[in-house]
């Protein structure tokens, strides 16, 4: 479904390297993309796979790759490069049990922080997290829109259970969504005053949050991209004020519009004392647990977070209004996402339901919901 979503979003370039449980996306792209106006390539490793995508994306083609834990580790250098060069890119990260080779056919939600904090400097990388096959389709399309508009890498964080479980989806009922394209210039952009002093001209912005249109590659003016610290012309510099501006801009362009980059599913009860928060595969057990607990009289709300990053702070605030405690359900040992959102929950009591090696069951969640506050 991710492959379907990607193709519907206009993905024109895919490169991959086999790794369970992400190989299905790779294989589907190899099978489908060539007949649907795209190019799908096998790379000799993940480092190459993501680099092919960066090259293709820099030339304006919507690009995607897919991997799992060990491959992601190899890709992170280039993820940072994509961030630094403002190259749109969608990466499907299908989680399996780690660390290291871990368990290739064992599900997990252990890569949440590994994915988010893969950059030096801790830049916010948008992460979308589907809970089922249908959302794989929808959120992949959304990921392309985000990547293109923000000009940055966007991660779709799935996991082994979602990727390798057969689910039926009614194709007819799928939304006819398309993804937005990055604004493009057919000719060299005039940068006014700034222009006069420079030979190169990649882009220009005034306020840090502006997302400038890039000059086209292959025009009258030299356009450069570098993963080294650079000015707005893409020229390498050490720590000039303009370089620092560019670095701040990489974060500002997302945070300034963070409220527009939110995807959650709310099932709120105004009288609720307890709020259950979950994401991905675990949220399906959590939703079941909430339904059952309500039947036995519990006052409980449910918030399923699809956009893990940037953290949907407003939605968190709304959902926690009047709530006495929050239960965060995720399939990892230490409560990785819980550690991130705890700081936004103020004095509310926060508990985790955590486990590895097997999916969390609704019964396990219920016992916490219905246990003493």
């Amino acid at each position, binding site marked *: 479904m991710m492959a379907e979503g990607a193709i519907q979003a206009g993905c024109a370039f895919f490169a991959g390297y086999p790794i*369970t449980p992400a*190989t299905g996306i*790779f*294989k589907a792209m190899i099978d489908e993309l060539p007949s649907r106006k795209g190019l799908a*390539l*096998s790379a*000799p*490793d993940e480092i190459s796979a993501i680099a092919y995508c960066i090259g293709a994306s820099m030339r304006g083609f919507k690009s995607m790759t897919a991997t799992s834990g*060990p491959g992601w580790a190899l890709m992170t250098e280039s993820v940072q490069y994509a961030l630094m060069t403002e190259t749109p890119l969608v990466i499907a990260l299908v989680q399996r049990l780690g660390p290291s*080779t871990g368990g290739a056919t064992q599900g997990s939600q252990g890569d949440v922080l590994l994915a988010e904090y893969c950059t030096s400097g801790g830049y916010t990388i948008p992460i979308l997290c589907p809970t089922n096959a249908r959302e794989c389709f929808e959120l992949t399309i959304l990921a392309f829109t985000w990547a293109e508009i923000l000009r940055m890498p966007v991660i779709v964080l799935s996991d082994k259970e979602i990727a390798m479980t057969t689910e039926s989806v009614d194709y007819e009922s799928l939304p006819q969504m398309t993804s937005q394209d990055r604004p493009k210039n057919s000719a060299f952009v005039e940068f006014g005053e700034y222009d006069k002093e420079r030979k190169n001209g990649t882009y220009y912005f005034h306020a840090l949050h502006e997302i400038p249109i890039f000059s086209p590659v292959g025009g009258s003016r030299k356009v450069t991209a570098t993963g080294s610290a650079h000015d707005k012309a893409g020229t390498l510099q050490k720590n000039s004020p303009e370089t620092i501006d560019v670095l701040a801009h990489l974060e500002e362009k997302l945070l300034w519009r963070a409220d527009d980059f939110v995807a959650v599913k709310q099932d709120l009860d105004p009288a609720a004392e307890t709020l259950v928060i979950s994401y991905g595969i675990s949220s399906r057990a959590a939703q079941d647990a909430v339904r059952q607990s309500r039947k036995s009289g519990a006052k409980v709300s449910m918030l399923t977070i699809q956009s893990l990053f940037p953290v949907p702070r407003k939605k968190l605030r709304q959902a926690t209004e009047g709530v006495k405690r929050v239960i965060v359900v995720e399939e990892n040992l230490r409560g990785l996402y819980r550690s991130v959102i705890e700081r936004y929950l103020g004095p509310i009591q926060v508990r985790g339901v955590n486990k590895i090696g097997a999916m969390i069951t609704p019964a396990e969640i219920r016992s916490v919901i219905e246990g003493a506050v």
Partner: protein
Amino acid sequence: MFEDRKMETMTAPAGMELVYRRPSTLVDTPMHYCPGCSHGVVHRLIMEVVEETGIQEKTIGVAPVGCSVFAYNYLDVDMQEAPHGRATAVATGIKRVHPDKIVFTYQGDGDLAAIGTGETIHTVNRGESIVVVFINNAIYGMTGGQMAPTTLLGMVTSTTPFGREQPVMGYPLKITELIAHLPGAYFVTRQAVHTTAHVRKAKKALQAAFEYQGHNKGTCFLEFVSNCPSGWKMTPLEANDWLEKNMLPMYPLGDLKVPGRN
């Protein structure tokens, strides 16, 4: 350290002669490999050599990820797994701190000739005194039969549904030929194990390689042209036949570099 297993002996029933047995260096357990797979044969050959030369306690193996990720369950020597592609790099570290040990890696073609190409070339170029066992089955076995750099032109794999096309995916990589050019390579040979005659020759090559390691003159590199019945979607016999007809013309058997000769 291996006392318990060394004690174990196999005997023939009365009146019969024992002509074939599991080497004591191979753990007595069923292997998970698919029927007909070359991995099991090569495992056995290596362990026969280890047994015959009495080096069990000083041999250290480095297993990759790939179908042979379970090798350490079968090969009764000290083993260490390496991240995908990094076997020769890990082996370098081991050999440098233990120059007196016998160190070997055991790698698939995806591991050695795709993600690990850089490590492979640099390890041999440094002439690390290790034995590299390279299983070339022209495919990624473990992950479900995707195209590897070694996949033949026209060969159908799960990621080349219409056969490997050169304009899109290039040529089959003959990494063993590349390796043989490097001055750090001491002994380079290409063998197969799909017939008894080939198995015998392959064993001789392994014996030579393990012996040469003691010379400390460079890397011993052995390619085994192998089958993958499951990945090729063939019966074991069909796979061996296909190997003979298709793999061997592209990957001809024989020594590429022999000490004292080249």
